[in-house]
């Protein structure tokens, strides 16, 4: 017999904040997106207008290229590194996990700042690499065609460590007996990794991919700061979030900006729903 009514008291404060800082802002953005500047209901007009904006498609194209590079790097390297770490002695792998996690401690703007120095041939410890690539100035290394790769490198540098911690945690749940049985059956480290461990952590890989996809569409700090660093030479509406921010501040068109915010929210919500319904990683009942 579990108590009932008092449950409301325990969750009430949280639910209030969930509404104030979560559900209400989403609803309000949707409301703004569906109204015109003169506060009349305007249906899908803001959405259609935003899709036709000359900056809209390019912003999503940029993000698409960035995502393709970043997600490939995540799958190959995070899964690969986690499998290698898992086959090592526990203490050695803990040390490596700590080093890989280090960059996660830097704020979004701090990691971009750091990478601007890494890409500036005058101060970078990687100058020889930059020269080898033919980049003599910062302008060369952050040329527009390099941006998706640069953002993927920064995102991977600051985010992969956390995913490695998660993936390693997933590998650690594999019962010892399973691995022992594989070893007795004559499976080498490579076979064990690809035939036994990998299928067992498939769901976590899917979770990482969808989560990283949703987070990647939200890119803001990196392109915004590179744009600041170049004094605005570089596109100020490189990513969709930048475009929405630009519209609401420079053009003061909140309804228009809200439409883009809702587009991005829809991508995030659909991704979240897919993770919840398809990966079976999160439980909602006992």
């Amino acid at each position: 017999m579990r108590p009932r009514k008092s449950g409301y008291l325990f969750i009430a404060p949280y639910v209030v904040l969930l509404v104030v800082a979560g559900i209400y802002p989403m609803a309000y953005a949707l409301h703004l997106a569906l109204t015109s500047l003169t506060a009349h209901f305007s249906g899908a007009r803001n959405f259609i207008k935003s899709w036709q904006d000359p900056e809209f498609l390019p912003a999503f194209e940029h993000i698409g290229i960035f995502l393709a590079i970043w997600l490939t790097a995540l799958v190959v390297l995070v899964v690969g590194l986690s499998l290698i770490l898992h086959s090592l002695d526990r203490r050695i792998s803990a040390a490596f996990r700590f080093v890989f996690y280090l960059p996660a401690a830097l704020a979004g703007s701090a990691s971009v700042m750091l990478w601007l120095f890494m890409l500036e041939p005058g101060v970078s410890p990687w100058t020889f690499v930059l020269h080898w690539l033919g980049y003599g100035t910062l302008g060369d290394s952050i040329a527009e065609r390099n941006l998706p790769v640069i953002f993927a490198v920064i995102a991977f540098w600051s985010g992969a460590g956390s995913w490695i911690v998660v993936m390693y945690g997933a590998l650690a749940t594999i019962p010892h007996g399973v691995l022992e049985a594989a070893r007795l059956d004559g499976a080498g480290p490579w076979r064990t990794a690809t035939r036994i461990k990998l299928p067992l952590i498939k769901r976590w890989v899917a979770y990482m991919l969808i989560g990283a996809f949703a987070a990647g569409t939200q890119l803001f700090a990196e392109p915004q700061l590179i744009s600041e660093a170049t004094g605005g030479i570089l596109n100020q509406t490189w990513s969709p979030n930048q475009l929405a921010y630009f519209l609401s501040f420079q053009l003061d068109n909140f309804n228009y900006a809200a439409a883009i915010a809702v587009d991005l929210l829809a991508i995030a919500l659909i991704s979240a729903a897919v993770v919840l319904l398809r990966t079976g990683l999160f439980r909602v009942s006992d």
Partner: protein
Amino acid sequence: MRALAERFRRASATQVMALSVLSLMAVFFAVPIVWAVFEAIGGTALHWLLNSAFYSTAGAAIAVALCIPAGYGLATHDFPGRRAVLIVTILVMLIPPNALVLPLFLEAHAAHLLTSPLAVILPYGLYPFGVYLAYLYFNTGRFELLLQTARMDGCSEWHVFKRIVLPLSLPVSALIAFLNFVASWTNFFLPWVMYWSFDTTSRYPLALGIALQLDTTKGASFYGALIQLHTASSPSYIALLLLVTCAPVLIVFALAQRWIGSSQLQGVFR
């Protein structure tokens, strides 16, 4: 907190004496180092650092204060709407925080809360992931049994929460506080939209202060080509700011890695 206060009340006078002596000595040992750090950072950036500490600590305090009761309520009480709250919690937790920033900005604008500290602290305090962690933590058969025993012994709901749930929640509270603190400490987009365009540098967290070091006026040369990085202060000073930014997170992570790392995260998943 109540449990802690209780423990203090029971502590004898000698223990209080011992604690005060230790605290005094801790001040003696730590102050010179703190001074060196503060002196190296200097005026404005120190202000940003304290802002960061204030926003993140306040956010983490709200998060823990809301997550523990909510997780406990969801895990051990049966009430209509429980499943719905849980599903919304997981959905919001799976949405990248950046997706909520513009909606939050629009809301803060309508509520005239832009440039107020509340505009960042309240969103920081909303931590569905923490609720889910607490929910999993309390959702075990062993815990259920403990609660039933207490109730059969005549413990009131409030007493159960105060005497059993709160003291037992310390490990998960620490985990929630740490993860939430790191998330707010490294957040950039939310304070950016709330403060950047309004000349409120006095409200900046360190993450924005660092961005301010990019000297935009000198960035563009006449030829439209960027020859080198121009910053408002020297690279060595910026490097110092970057080190200070990552210090608190690294110290806690290094101290508690075993505990924050894989074993705790495993429990998140089924």
